[in-house]
């Protein structure tokens, strides 16, 4: 493999119902920086059926070109049909870096493509950079167990690939006047070649905690002690109209559903206000909430790392502080006679 044959930064443009996923736009923002550093073009690759109108948006968000494969067989995401498309593009145009959103479909696709290309793939990245001299992608993620990050490199194989957590990178402001090229490609895949069929897609938001869209989140950790004390988290959330989240420990303990987990293996959230209560602030949690606008941490331990990322810290016993907070909010609501709204 001659590594110099591979040039350019690519982003997988994931789309559903004629709409581009947020993480793909974020990755165009992150990819733009990498491409500029490496002085190569940034491309989005878009697969689907009747998705051509989305290509302009990909360019507006920072891409220099869009590789498009538009076929009925690509109407729904399926590993086999999509990976055939990506394999075709990657073999023909040889990008040096491919980024995918760490969504169910993005992770599924990246894993399959990495196997067939025999190349390296870093999962759930939260920091991206390139080394200009070696042209190596530096994909960093929290390392297992410790409050430490690991930078993963792929030195001898191309393309270098990573899946990236949603809501960690920043999308650019779209610029409709940006110019770019749309390159349409065909692949010969018939419906009979694909061994899975999507019979139905069910949008089920009832099971979702909707943390991703919440304006205010009250999040509890194992510092709450037990399930009974954890009800204080619900009570505070209820009083101020917030969503409830928890750390991995709390979900593992069965106090919350997995959908409510905030952090590396749960949701990444960016609410206006985030209450971190009884949470020490392990890096696996912090990567999932540090971009919240206003963070209030309550913890007994004055040295807890959660205070490093909080806007305001209260050092104290949550069992004492939270009931007082609830009382204050209730009093306020009674005095002013209204519901909290968040702008």
């Amino acid at each position, binding site marked *: 493999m001659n590594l110099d044959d591979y040039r350019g930064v690519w982003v997988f443009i994931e789309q559903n119902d004629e709409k581009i996923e947020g993480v793909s736009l974020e990755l165009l923002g992150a990819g733009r920086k990498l491409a500029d550093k490496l002085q190569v073009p940034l491309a989005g690759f878009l697969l689907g059926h009747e998705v051509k109108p989305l290509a302009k948006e990909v360019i507006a968000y920072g891409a220099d070109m869009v590789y498009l494969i538009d076929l009925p067989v690509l109407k729904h995401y399926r590993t086999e049909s999509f990976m055939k498309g990506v394999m075709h593009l990657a073999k023909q145009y040889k990008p040096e870096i491919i980024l995918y959103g760490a969504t*169910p479909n993005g992770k599924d696709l990246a894993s399959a493509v990495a196997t067939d290309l025999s190349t390296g793939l870093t*999962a759930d990245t939260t920091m991206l950079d390139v080394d200009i001299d070696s042209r190596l992608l530096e994909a960093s993620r929290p390392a297992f*167990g410790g409050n430490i990050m*690991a*930078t993963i490199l792929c030195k001898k194989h191309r393309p270098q690939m990573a899946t990236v957590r949603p809501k960690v990178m920043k999308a650019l402001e779209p610029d409709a006047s940006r110019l770019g090229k749309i390159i349409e490609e065909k692949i010969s895949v018939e419906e009979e070649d694909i*061994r*899975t069929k999507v019979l139905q897609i*069910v949008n089920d938001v009832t099971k979702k905690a909707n943390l991703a869209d919440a304006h205010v989140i009250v999040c509890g950790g194992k510092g709450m002690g037990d399930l009974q004390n954890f009800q204080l988290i619900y009570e505070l959330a209820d009083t101020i109209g917030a969503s409830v989240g928890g750390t991995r420990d709390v979900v593992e303990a069965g106090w919350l559903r997995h959908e409510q987990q905030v952090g590396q293996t749960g949701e990444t959230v960016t609410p206006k206000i985030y209450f971190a209560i009884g949470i020490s602030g392990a890096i696996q949690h912090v990567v999932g909430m540090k971009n919240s606008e206003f963070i209030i941490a309550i913890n007994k331990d004055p040295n807890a790392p959660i205070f490093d990322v909080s806007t305001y810290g209260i050092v104290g016993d949550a069992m004492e502080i939270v009931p007082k907070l609830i009382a204050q909010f209730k009093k306020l609501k009674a005095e*002013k006679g209204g519901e909290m709204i968040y702008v």
Partner: protein
Amino acid sequence: MHIVVCVKQVPDTKIIKINPKTNTLDRRSAPAILNPYDAHAVQEAVKIKELTGGSISVLSMGPPQATAVIKKSIEIGADRGYLITDRAFAGADTLATSYALSKALERINKDHPVDMIICGKHAIDGDTGQVGPGIARRMDIPPVTNVIEVTEVNQKEKTVLLKRKLTNGYELIQSELPCLLTVEKEINEIEYSPMPNMIEAARYEPIIWAVSDLENVDRAQLGLKGSPTIVGKMFTPPRPEGGKKLEGSADEQVSQIMEVLMEKKDLFTLQPSK
């Protein structure tokens, strides 16, 4: 119906301690357990076997002591277990791991043709979720990841109906058999193991294979040598300055934070009720 479940031994992340000086984990502090997602994978195989008959094999790669997770799988209801263990496998990333496991699966498939492979969604020590789909590609069978329900297994038509979790709901998928599933925890509840299973597990001796027991292995694709990714560096992210720590009694701190919040009119405000 012959189902193979791929399982991994992992340190229990709930109990593991962190060395505050180095910020890395103290592996000695954590007991080794069957990866929780894999336990659900074995349980799902047991549920399918109750309907279809057949047998369940489990396959693991790891050090010799990883036989413990095979015994645990027998306890849940697997019929036989294979451990591939060899120094040549050490240091494998996800690509090299899926290669080694697929070579073992090829041998299992020769003796007992495989109809379905089930893996956990990811292992709690690596959190990548990349090995399952990798195995599917190497075995040339369709992967269906993030499965939350096995709705129907049709042995006559050789198809399976599955619910696959998506960001905003789920999709109903029909797949041909054989196929590979990776399962979410919500797919089932782990049942208490019946006493005969526990006795069988205690007595069970897993089948142990080294690289030399596998066929057509390209050693260059194994272990550290066969791994395209390496850890470049470990670092502690720069500590942000942090915000203001409030002072005073609990009551004083609470009223201070209320004041701050009330001033933040760009964040939220009270709307008079209608």
